[in-house]
């Protein structure tokens, strides 16, 4: 029996990614997948997926990020909807030209002649001593490149819904998944038409005292910080960014207008980060509502260290979010 609009199933984030990919492969014959070892699939979303659809639509590539992302641009320009995987978000640096100079600009440079319906999935974030070249959250780099859309699912349902929107979108979309979230579980809608629109944030916890704008893996830390703060009578409103480009300014600004305080939280490093852009936006558009200077919580401005002790000191946490909120309220 086909699932109804309200059926859900408890599944992991990686299974939700898989469901989105499978549904879109079945729905649209122009969708196909490429990436290194995706049939084996280190984190699971595409494991043996070639056995469930036409095998030529789930392609293991050689280790050659520049060539397969470039090939995805070429395919997108000529009628296909490629979905490529960069095994760790850190490796995206190897194919920067194809993303920044080719995918992002092809439409504008040609006076709007073409569209580039391309999705790049890339897992980022801290996870158990993965060290400097396998831990980064590079989303802020791409916010600086007009022509790219960026989303970061923080829940299994969003892992499905945002990815489906990205695949159906006519522009290049970077979907930064999170390594440490792949094995988290929650209810996921089974409806093949379930999508989560790009550019729509979600309020994960309501509160009147402070707005906490959180990205990706930091959403759950922000919610747990909110729960801890509530025991001291501080009510934080936690916003899950979901998309950075396009950004849901309305949800953000109306929350700040209500609370008068802003804390941003991300796993990327502080300088030039997502928080910098969000704070700039809020101070220019909601200056009069602010009761105190906004505070940014982020990873330290340094390469991510290997040792677990150092890694923990470098990463933001529920604790550092609580401290930031308290410093806002005390200030």
């Amino acid at each position, binding site marked *: 029996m086909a699932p109804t609009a309200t059926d859900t199933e408890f599944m992991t984030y990686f299974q939700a990614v898989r469901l989105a990919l499978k549904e879109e492969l079945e729905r649209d014959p122009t969708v196909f997948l490429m990436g*290194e070892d995706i049939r084996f699939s280190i984190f699971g979303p595409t494991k043996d997926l070639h056995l469930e659809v036409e095998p030529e639509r789930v392609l293991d590539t050689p*280790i050659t990020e520049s060539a397969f992302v470039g090939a995805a641009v070429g395919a997108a320009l000529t009628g296909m909807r490629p979905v490529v995987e960069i095994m760790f978000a*850190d490796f995206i640096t190897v194919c920067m030209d194809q993303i920044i100079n080719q995918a992002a600009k092809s439409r504008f440079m040609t006076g709007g002649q073409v569209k580039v319906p391309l999705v790049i999935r890339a897992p980022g974030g801290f996870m*158990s001593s993965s060290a400097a070249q396998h831990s980064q959250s590079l989303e802020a780099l791409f916010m600086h490149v007009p022509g790219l859309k960026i989303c970061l699912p923080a829940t299994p349902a969003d892992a499905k819904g945002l990815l489906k929107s990205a695949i159906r979108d006519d522009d290049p979309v970077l979907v930064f998944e999170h390594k440490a979230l792949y094995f988290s579980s929650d209810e996921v809608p089974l409806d093949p038409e379930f999508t989560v629109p790009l550019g729509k944030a979600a309020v994960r916890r309501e509160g009147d005292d402070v707005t906490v704008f959180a990205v990706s893996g930091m959403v759950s830390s922000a919610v747990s910080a909110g729960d801890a703060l509530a025991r001291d009578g501080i009510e934080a409103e936690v916003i899950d960014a979901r998309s950075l480009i396009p950004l849901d300014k309305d949800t953000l600004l109306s929350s700040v207008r209500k609370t008068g305080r802003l804390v941003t939280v991300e796993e990327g490093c502080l300088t030039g980060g997502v928080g910098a852009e969000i704070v700039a936006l809020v101070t220019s558009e909601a200056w009069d509502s602010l009761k105190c200077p906004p505070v940014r919580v982020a990873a*330290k401005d*340094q*390469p991510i260290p290997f*040792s677990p*002790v*150092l890694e923990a000191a470098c990463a933001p946490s529920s604790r550092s979010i609580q401290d930031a909120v308290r410093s806002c309220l005390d200030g």
Partner: protein
Amino acid sequence: MRDYPQDKLLELYRTMYTIRRFEETVSEMAAGGLIPGFMIHLYVGQEAVATGVCAALRQDDFIVSTHRGHGHLIAKGGRIDLMMAELMGKEAGYCRGRGGSMHITSFELGSLGANGIVGAGLAIAPGAALSAKLRGTDQVTACFFGDGASNQGTFHEGLNLAATWCLPVVFVCENNGYGFSTPRSCHQSVSSIAERASAYDIPGETIDGDDVLAVLEATERSVERARKGDGPSLVEATTHRWHGHFEDDDDDYRSEEEKEACTESCPICRFEEACVERGNDASALERVREEVEAEVEKARAFAEECPEPKPEDDASMIFAGGDA
């Protein structure tokens, strides 16, 4: 057959056996949760390549390593106690606990870095060789990389650059038949990687990478050529990866038979036989094994006991000028 002094043979044997026992110990410790991280790429089965290559190098020559780099560093003279400390993330480690398995290195020993980015070293090696040329030294750079890495643009760009500028690089491809889960037949169309040398008009040869003397002799030829100023060459050493791609890998893309077959070409057993054939008595080998066992145990005990690094020291390692 070239003659080797007995102590030279024993030295090669010691290096290979040290790599083997170090890696097996790391594997055990990783399984017991004693090594942080889930991406620990071990060198078991490939010992003859690093050992043969580094034995052909001078101490002041450079190597460029990979994600599978423990063996390279040991062969270049790495101290296994400091290596074990690094793998455990301790302050006494070669990278003060900041790098771990994938970034383990010692510049003092001429290792320009293990690397988490497949193919990155193929562009770095020509730079080190250019530097030697500009500084007027005759240092050679040996660049290790895998069959999978030979598909990155940097392989082609690096070989072309080194060939065009006649740089002293020995490109050493460790062909273990796989890039992670992908067998060579699915990731490249050529049957021999060495053949690609002809595209850059440099010598290329394929050798048995599980035969340490074959590796040593081929590398010596390439090093001599490079040192004379005749430019780079490509050595493809065929070998076998005994463990999974990394220690957490189920390795279910290879059949049990295939995995067992890997061990038939054990570079260490083969060299033991060669040593005996060449007149070494088995008890000398036995003595080396005992010494290595004790050294590995000591390294482990040292690493377990030494202190954790301090977060406040990180800042001094970001910029050369110290705290920013």
